[in-house]
């Protein structure tokens, strides 16, 4: 029993990182209808930017913030220069996926070329641990859980309380109709790619903080459970991705604890497939569905 409770604690921490990444991934898909596989490599890029900053004596949490903003900016440029023009030329969704896979692979090997293939580590953060009920979590894990909760709440308030957030949802729901209301949808897209890029960057550094060591494959490996979380929640649905992240995180850690750690991902995918069999659009899929017209 104690083992399971500990696994749940770990699962919440893992789930928080997955949720951070999955929400950003989902926002990008929602606004642009692009399944951006480069996202994984951008997380890796963020982890390495964080590494450089930490090696220069910058605090890990400050490094997380700086890397997040940097990857946010890179995401906007990437979307503007490569992805948006391809969409405007009528590139099909499947070809867009291949483009993002290719760009991600290129970026990953650029990182290897610069930083080398060996494992890296942010080093020991703080030995401090927190005890809550029967859960024991490190300072880093607790900070990431709190940070994720704050960022998700901020995103929720942005999307539901502000005109900008509503315009993002409107653009995601129906781009042509949004334009007919006078919404400059390409500017809204830029903002959405910046915000989701920041979440991607934050997730990259958070992941590096919570793992003992990492290398250039950090983001690529993490991409699969993250996409699973996004799909589980209903792709394009930020709230679904939050919940999906938690479900995947907790179930995979509990599965690893009660059986063989090798089954960690398997259990997450079994849950994903069962959920999709019951609800093909994912947990939140019905609420935000709409035929999307891609006219730039």
């Amino acid at each position, binding site marked *: 029993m104690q083992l399971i409770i500990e696994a749940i604690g770990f699962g919440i921490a893992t789930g928080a990182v997955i949720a951070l990444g999955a929400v950003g991934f989902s926002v990008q898909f929602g606004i642009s209808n692009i399944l951006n596989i480069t996202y994984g490599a951008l997380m890796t890029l963020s982890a390495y930017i964080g590494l450089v900053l930490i090696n220069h004596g910058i605090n890990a949490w400050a490094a997380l913030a700086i890397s997040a903003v940097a990857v946010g900016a890179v995401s906007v440029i990437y979307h503007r220069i490569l992805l948006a023009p391809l969409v405007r030329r009528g590139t099909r969704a499947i070809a867009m996926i291949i483009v993002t896979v290719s760009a991600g692979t290129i970026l990953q090997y650029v990182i290897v070329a610069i930083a080398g293939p060996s494992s890296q580590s942010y080093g020991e953060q703080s030995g401090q641990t927190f005890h809550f009920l029967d859960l024991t979590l490190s300072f880093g894990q607790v900070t990431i859980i709190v940070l994720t909760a704050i960022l998700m709440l901020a995103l929720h308030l942005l999307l539901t309380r502000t*005109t900008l957030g*509503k*315009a993002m*949802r*409107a653009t*995601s*729901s*129906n781009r*042509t*109709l*949004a*334009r*007919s*209301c*006078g*919404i*400059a*949808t390409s500017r809204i897209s830029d903002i959405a790619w910046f915000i989701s890029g920041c979440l991607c960057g934050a997730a990259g550094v958070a992941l590096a903080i919570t793992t003992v060591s990492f290398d250039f494959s950090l983001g690529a490996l993490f991409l699969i459970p993250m996409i699973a979380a996004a799909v589980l929640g209903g792709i394009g649905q930020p709230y679904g991705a939050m919940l999906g992240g938690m479900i995947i995180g907790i179930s995979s850690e509990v599965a690893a604890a009660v059986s063989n750690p090798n089954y960690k991902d398997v259990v997450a995918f079994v849950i994903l497939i069962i959920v999709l069999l019951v609800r093909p659009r994912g947990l939140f899929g*019905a*609420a*935000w*569905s*709409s*035929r999307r*017209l891609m*006219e730039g």
Partner: protein
Amino acid sequence: MSSADVQKPFLALAIRGITAGYGGPPIVTNLDMDVAKGKVVAVVGPNGAGKSTLLKAILGIARVESGRVELNGTDVTGLPLEKLARLGIGYVPQVDDVFDGLRVRENLDMGGYLFNKHQRAERMERALTVFPQLRPRLNRYVETLSGGERKMTAIARVLMLDPSVLVLDEPTAGLSPELSKAVLETQVRALGDLGKAVLLVEQKAVAALGISDWAYMLVRGEVVMSADAKEVLAKPDMREIFLGATAPNEVTADRAP
């Protein structure tokens, strides 16, 4: 009496020799149309006549190869949709006319996106006076509404923009006959009476003519008739032409992207 004679003094939307399509052969050729302030102008015609393409050409979505679109005397040909919204053209598409995933209130907010909070609140009050049925449904997500309520939301949303010209693409599509009648007679007609210039594309020709001031008949991308809507309805042979022309065996070039 021509359309220009009737409408000239308050011309809001003028279409001059428009030829437009999607890069291939033009779908509509050399169209001329006038829509005056306070008038409802119906564009009727069979499937594939180019009605939707005409609207898309006006809205900067289809490619205009020649001709001009003038809004209150200014050339707006080919301007992007978001610019046209700023200049006062409101658009209600045939399908996907509301923001799914947003509440009714949020849909209206988006209609008033170009205005500040205070103006938006004021306009929302005005829109809710026109559609009091929406008031108790403001916090509902639009996908939980009935077809008629969704259409009301769509029209209320476009009213938030307070446009001088309204472009309505088959506002009765998918609605029951009773509801279609109500939408046309009470809502679309009311828009004209509010002083808007309304360009109405409708498949239901007789119903559309019943509430319109002027009618254009489009067949295979060309205007084959331009006449007072009431006169068209009054003449049995003309009704014959209209009903005859809506035979389902017409080409469907309008399905182009």
